[in-house]
């Protein structure tokens, strides 16, 4: 299909994917051992194949003797328990967290638990991606049940052997004990007999309460840490197969362009070059865009050939986007509110009633993901099978895409997930995986596609920029009475805002005020946009969190008091139709007030600050995480900001691994600071203006402030923590700058307003 026709579909596909990712369906029932063995292809050695990259040592020790209790638990005669992490480790800590959740309910001895990466098999594991901070909430029931049912089978096996009731037996530290007789057997000794016991109905197996946890909530070092600090191969980029070749893929710098001609003969003569050829691609940026593949003996050979490659592009269908022109256009459009999408109450009556009215416009730039491991995937077309290794965030979706793209039977595509050097939403897309597969179909050897850093800049699914024109009113008692938001955003298809560029229901709920008006104007954009760590919230909480502060200042209210007052507004009733709302993921005024009050206390809200210092605070509810953040900073005469301390307080339900949770909160807050201060992608003539870290100053250690983290633990189902700590930071930062200087920053990055860090 011609590029022009397929191209426009990509944004709709991303939006459908994100909607699916963010919806947590009913938990997948833990399947029995036999079903699992059949589906996992154990008999054919499929599982062994799947673990090629990960823990080869563990496999060699006991692969043949270990007993499979279910899809998540395997026990070896030496009492080593191996649990499987079904999702990708992208830095969010789930490999350790998933292991801990299973081990907790299994009553396994954590010191001898090994965590291996599960094979990609959605029929066995259900969802195997990592998006929308849903890994933990999605896996919570499924993983606990996997541990608890395996434990029940081990206890049943011991009870049978001892001829005592199972109720008299207890499990702890990978052993079952019969209390009254003192008899004790290890899981390793019981595993074979346990595997013959019936799989109990999950409803009949009790799960622990928070008070009963032995592991969850404590501090654990990540299961791969020793391998990380000794440089062991873990990542997609580290995959090496016998006879493997290396590839780079060159696409049009303006997205949508096609190849007219290229100096392929010259390239093929270069040292170390095995082949060079044109791919027409599928024309969908989520799959394979047209380009030139270079196949080489080493990565460096491929990169050198890329520099020497000369391609004449046909840019008739390519992007000609200019963000400079878009900024001017947005200003024009912002002046007139379009027909509102939402109109609650009588907002004009409030604005003309004599209430205090504030008007302001905010904007934020396009930004890029730039996970540190450049995109790569390894593909090996052999024996009618496409076998692949990838650091994708959604290898399960990648599997379906490759099956469809190559028109292969389901069982002829095998994907192994590796550790990923960061994700941030970029690796929810599988374009590099599709490219590797398309290239490997034409290469008679395993081939690793390796992008350059410059490729990661030129071909991202960017966080869209946006423009907000706001008007709000507060009454004499400091109550928010009216809120109007005119969003000027971008559109790929002309009918709705691009992925990540639309309205955020978290930041801008319909019940934000009793009188609400919301309208959206769209500008065309061909550059692909997509989810970026806490999509929509990461920008709109800056806008809303800053504007709420403008309103509290206008009302002469203390901002913490103003927010507490605002939390207690009448909330919209959930829709009468459809499933009941998931209360662990919706805004809860009690949880919100809890974290805000603690953040105020821990940051010293109301204390006397040194001259030139300012303290700002903001709240956000994102993916179920209720997060309050405070920033204390000072600003010098040249507008250089020194952040003295960030305070993060979160309520994400129970904490799985306190060490990892604090790390995520610190990293999320500093990512928020880094992006708010200095990151911006420019686009002119359809070309991305930044090409490497020199023009994209990701924050470094000298500018990284101490981040103090506190959690309020609750019994709501746990929320994920990869994303929720990013969104409130920018508003807290802007509010602190206002407190220190009296200047309101209404643009991101702040460097546009002259501030540096």
């Amino acid at each position, binding site marked *: 299909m011609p590029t022009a026709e397929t191209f426009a579909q990509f944004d709709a596909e991303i939006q459908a994917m994100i909607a699916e990712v963010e919806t947590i369906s009913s938990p997948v029932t833990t399947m029995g051992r036999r079903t699992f063995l059949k589906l996992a292809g154990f008999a054919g050695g499929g599982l062994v194949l799947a673990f090629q990259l990960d823990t080869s040592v563990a496999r060699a020790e006991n692969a043949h003797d270990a007993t499979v209790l279910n899809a998540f638990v395997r026990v070896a005669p030496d009492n080593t328990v191996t649990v499987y992490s079904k999702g990708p*480790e*992208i*830095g*969010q*800590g789930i490999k350790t967290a998933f292991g801990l959740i299973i081990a907790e309910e299994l009553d396994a001895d954590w010191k001898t638990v090994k965590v291996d990466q599960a094979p990609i098999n959605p029929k066995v594991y259900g969802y195997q991606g990592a998006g929308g901070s849903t890994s933990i909430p999605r896996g919570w029931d499924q993983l606990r049940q996997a541990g608890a049912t395996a434990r029940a089978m081990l206890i049943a096996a011991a009870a049978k052997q001892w001829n005592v009731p199972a109720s008299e037996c207890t499990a702890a530290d990978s052993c079952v004990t019969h209390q009254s007789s003192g008899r004790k057997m290890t899981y390793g000794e019981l595993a074979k007999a346990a595997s013959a016991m019936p799989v109990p109905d999950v409803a009949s197996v009790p799960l622990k309460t928070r008070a009963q946890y032995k592991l969850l909530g404590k501090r*654990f*070092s*990540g299961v*791969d*840490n*020793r391998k*990380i*600090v*000794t*440089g*062991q*191969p*873990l*990542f997609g*980029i580290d995959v*090496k197969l016998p006879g493997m070749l*290396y590839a780079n893929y060159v696409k049009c710098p303006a997205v949508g362009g096609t190849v007219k001609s290229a100096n392929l003969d010259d390239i093929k003569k270069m*040292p170390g070059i095995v082949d060079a050829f044109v791919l027409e691609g599928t024309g969908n940026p989520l799959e394979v865009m047209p380009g030139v593949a270079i196949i080489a003996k*080493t*990565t*460096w050979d491929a990169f050198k050939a890329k520099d020497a490659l000369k391609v004449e592009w046909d840019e008739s269908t390519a992007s000609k986007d200019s963000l400079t022109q878009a900024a001017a256009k947005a200003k024009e459009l912002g002046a007139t509110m379009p027909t509102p999408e939402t109109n609650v109450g009588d907002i004009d009556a409030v604005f003309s009633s004599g209430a205090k009215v504030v008007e302001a416009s905010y904007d934020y730039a396009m930004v890029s993901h*730039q*996970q*540190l*491991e*450049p995109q790569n995937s390894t593909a090996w077309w052999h024996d009618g099978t496409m076998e692949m290794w990838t650091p994708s965030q959604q290898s399960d979706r990648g599997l379906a895409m490759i099956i469809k793209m190559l028109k292969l039977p389901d069982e002829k595509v095998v994907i192994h997930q590796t*550790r990923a*050097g*960061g*994700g*941030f939403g970029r690796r929810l897309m599988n374009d590099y995986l599709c490219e590797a597969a398309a290239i490997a179909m034409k290469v008679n050897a395993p081939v690793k596609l*390796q992008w*350059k*850093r410059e490729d990661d800049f030129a071909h991202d699914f960017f966080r869209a920029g946006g423009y907000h024109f706001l008007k709000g009113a507060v009454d004499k008692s400091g109550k928010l009475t009216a809120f109007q938001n005119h969003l000027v955003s971008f559109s790929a298809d002309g009918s709705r805002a691009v992925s990540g560029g639309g309205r955020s229901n978290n930041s801008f709920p319909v019940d934000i005020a009793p009188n609400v008006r919301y309208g959206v104007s769209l500008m065309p954009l061909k550059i692909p946009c997509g989810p970026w760590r806490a999509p929509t919230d990461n920008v709109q909480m800056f806008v809303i969190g800053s504007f709420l502060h403008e309103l509290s200042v206008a009302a002469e209210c203390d901002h913490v008091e103003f927010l507490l007052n605002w939390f207690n507004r009448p909330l919209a009733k959930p829709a009468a139709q459809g499933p009941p709302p998931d209360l662990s993921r919706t805004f809860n005024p009690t949880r919100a007030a809890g974290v805000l009050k603690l953040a105020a206390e821990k940051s010293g809200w109301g204390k006397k600050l040194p001259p030139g210092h300012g303290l700002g605070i903001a709240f956000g509810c994102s993916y179920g995480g209720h997060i309050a953040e405070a920033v204390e900073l000072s600003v010098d005469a040249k507008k250089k900001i020194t952040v003295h301390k960030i305070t993060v307080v979160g309520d994400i339900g129970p904490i799985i691994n306190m*060490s*990892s949770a604090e*790390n*995520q909160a*610190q*990293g*999320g807050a*500093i*990512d928020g600071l*880094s992006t708010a201060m200095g990151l911006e992608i420019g686009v002119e003539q359809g070309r991305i203006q930044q090409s*490497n*870290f*020199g023009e994209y100053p*990701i*924050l*470094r*250690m*000298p500018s*990284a402030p*101490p*981040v103090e983290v506190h959690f309020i633990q609750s019994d709501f189902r746990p929320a994920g923590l990869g994303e929720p700590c990013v969104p409130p930071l920018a508003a807290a930062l802007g509010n602190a700058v206002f407190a220190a200087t009296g200047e309101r920053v209404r643009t991101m990055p702040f460097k546009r307003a002259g501030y540096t860090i």
Partner: protein
Amino acid sequence: MPLQLNINRKSCTVDAAGDTPLLWVLRDVLDMKGTKYGCGIGMCGACTVLMDGNAIRSCLTPVSAVTGNITTIEGLAEGDKLHPLQQAWVDLDVAQCGYCQGGQILSAASLLAKHPKPTDAQIQEGMAGNICRCATYNRIKAAIHQATGSQG
């Protein structure tokens, strides 16, 4: 052409063009994957290795310019005994994605050669060349202090 290198206390001969960056010789020729490719222009520090104890960017160092003994992250421990920095990194659970951490640890090792008990300011200056996209900077700093018994 064959080149003689000394890597992690072992001498080896590699067959590579002299302008090949040390990074790609390590990764693709010698199959040592601990040294990471991040940016290729010396801006991120993921490719950091030590040459005679000093941190260098292997992505910008042609293999023909390697004149000293190279230590990569694979060679920092002595057998099973982790270097104090590696141990502190594990104990404090520094890593998130972990991709940059080999380079971070080697930059820290280079810093300690000059400042055995570094201050916060010395750590910030010494580590400024290494990007951690996950922003584990608080813990990197704490781990350096822990490994050296220094105070913030």
